[in-house]
């Protein structure tokens, strides 16, 4: 076995926005936040849940009586975040806290911004919600809670809400998610990608039955054993085993529509892979057609499968059906 290479790495960003249906209770809760108000829901025993829920967590009974609680409350517990992450609510050291709002019986998780000073935090601290100037109907409409030592718990919370006092519900909550990763290709893929940067296509042999897998994955997916032997070179020409004419656009597509997506069995390999056929009339594409890789100019080669721009017909006679029958 050749020496284990240090793995190639590449950044990967996962980014999307979930659009979530809110339902009758949370919809009003988020609508309330948009109006600068905080809502809870009353349980059968009279206690008030904040944030509100559609069902009682103990009994599963449906809940419907929304009430308004105060923008002031008391810190029940807190955790000091000395090094906030980018997505977190406050850009300087702050506390995540469980805050029991006046009129509520359960605490709400949110942030407390004490100007970066941990010494101002304590359990029992009185705090007040600081609403954002522009609100869209999310818990982030409360930028953070702030210490409010003078704010006494006022009587009158929670407040009953008549139908006309209920906020307009928010129908859809948008939750953006963005995560950063650093992928490592692993040993087998690193070997494969380093070779393709030199114009070589590497396969690896299963030690059990000798089948050659391309691209190299480090394991025989059939037997679950590592393909530890010396990699073998696979040719950059082969046979179309199957194909599909693609007429639907998708993002990051490098070729023009319509094109043929092909499953290719490369000469010397026992597994197929998928690529793009070009420089061919689409009506001519067929199973058994012989194709060859068209590479980028050598000076543009990198450790990427994209070094092969596409495949084109090689002009050789068709391969006999038996030669690829096992791969259908």
């Amino acid at each position, binding site marked *: 076995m050749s020496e284990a290479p240090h793995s190639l790495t590449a950044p990967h960003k996962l980014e999307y926005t979930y659009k979530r249906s809110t339902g009758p209770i949370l919809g009003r809760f988020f609508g309330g936040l948009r109006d600068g108000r905080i809502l809870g829901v009353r349980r059968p025993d009279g206690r008030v849940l904040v944030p509100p829920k559609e069902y009682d*967590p*103990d009994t599963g009974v449906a809940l419907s009586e929304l009430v308004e609680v105060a923008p002031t409350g008391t810190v029940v517990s807190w955790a000091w975040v000395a090094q906030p992450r980018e997505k*977190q609510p406050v850009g300087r050291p702050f506390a995540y806290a469980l805050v029991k709002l006046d009129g509520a019986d359960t605490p709400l998780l949110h942030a407390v911004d004490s100007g970066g000073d941990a010494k101002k935090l304590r*359990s029992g601290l009185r705090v007040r919600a600081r609403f954002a100037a522009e609100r869209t109907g999310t818990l982030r409409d409360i930028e953070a809670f702030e210490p409010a030592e003078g704010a006494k718990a006022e009587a009158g919370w929670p407040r009953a809400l008549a139908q006309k006092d209920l906020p307009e519900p928010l129908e859809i909550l948008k939750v953006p998610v963005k995560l950063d990763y650093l992928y490592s290709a692993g040993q087998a893929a690193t070997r494969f990608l380093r070779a393709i940067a030199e114009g070589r296509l590497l396969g690896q042999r299963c030690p059990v039955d000798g089948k050659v897998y391309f691209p190299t994955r480090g394991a025989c997916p059939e037997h679950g*054993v590592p393909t530890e032997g010396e990699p073998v070179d696979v040719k950059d020409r082969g046979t179309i085993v199957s194909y599909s004419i693609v007429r639907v656009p998708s993002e990051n597509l490098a070729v023009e529509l319509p094109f043929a997506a092909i499953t290719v069995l490369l000469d010397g390999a026992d597994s197929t892979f998928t690529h793009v056929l070009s420089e061919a009339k689409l009506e001519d594409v067929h199973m058994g057609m012989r194709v060859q890789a068209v590479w980028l100019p050598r000076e543009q080669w990198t450790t990427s499968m994209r070094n092969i721009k596409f495949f084109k017909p090689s002009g050789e006679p068709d391969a006999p059906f038996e030669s690829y029958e096992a791969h259908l």
Partner: protein
Amino acid sequence: MRDVAVVSFAQSRHVRREPDRNEVEILMPVVREARERSGLGRGEIDFVCSGSTDYLAGQSFAFVAGLDAVGAWPPICESHVEMDGAWALYEAWVKIQTGYADSALVYGFGKASMGDLPEVLALQLDPYVLTPLWPDAVSLAALQARLCLEGGVVSEGAMAEAAVRDRRNAKDNPFAQVKGDFEAAKLLGEPFHVAPLRKHDCAPISDGAAAVVIAAGDVARRVCKRPAWITGFTHIAEPQDLGVRDLTRSRSTEIAAEKAGVGKGPVDVAELSAPFTHQELLVERALGLGGATKVNPSGGALAANPIMAVGLVRVGEAARRVQDGSARRAVAHATSGPCLQQNLVCVLEG
């Protein structure tokens, strides 16, 4: 109920960052070792079940790649849980109970180093009212720790002692990541990480994998000299909302322990998967363990924390001690979700 036993166990060396190997390459030798130790050939294992989470790789269906380590042609009977491998073990155990399988290979794996784990774990929270605030896993645990400290349920000293114990025990564990001799007083002199938690209160972040083979009655007796029989197995969940839970005790562990019959006999060894020191103390209490129980002889989750495998490692470590005769009766615990939301308890006997 059918008699089912753990017949073999294997794990990787758990490290902060696997620089060269991808998940499948970490997993493959572990699966192979567990399979070889089980004495069961590939065709003799009826069911395969795995635990992992795609968010560690940021790629949907990332877990399917794990099958490369198993070999899935001709097609195999297989399942996956988006949970720690201990829950995959539970599914496999149920499968054997149904009579549809007599043996199963179970594995869990995670390469946490590819992303920011405490942040990634924010995605397991309520997506309406919690995830938008991006509370990281350490901050949530710190909120719980403060409630426990101020409520007099635990002390900073006892938390530090838990870390000292686990790290000392881990000295004998070649697979552990954080180990050595430490003094509680010195640890308490360290600055806060996310107050009131210090670094020693938090499990490390680890890349790693584990695999276990279980088998029913006669099969287990045939391949294993001293099978570790599963005599109790339960998992219990609490609500997702932190505000409606009592965070100063682990009710779900108490119920799981009761249902699994932990108290029906002396417990020689307990392997706990709590990733924070105060949680380890809560779990120890909830299980009702006494002074005669050796807790975390492997070092527990505080010594190595390969997420999605760490709970399965606890079962494997407990089973190993039953198999080698150093324990007659052992308990393994696994947890999932924020602040000990879900807990699994497995009782193993020789």
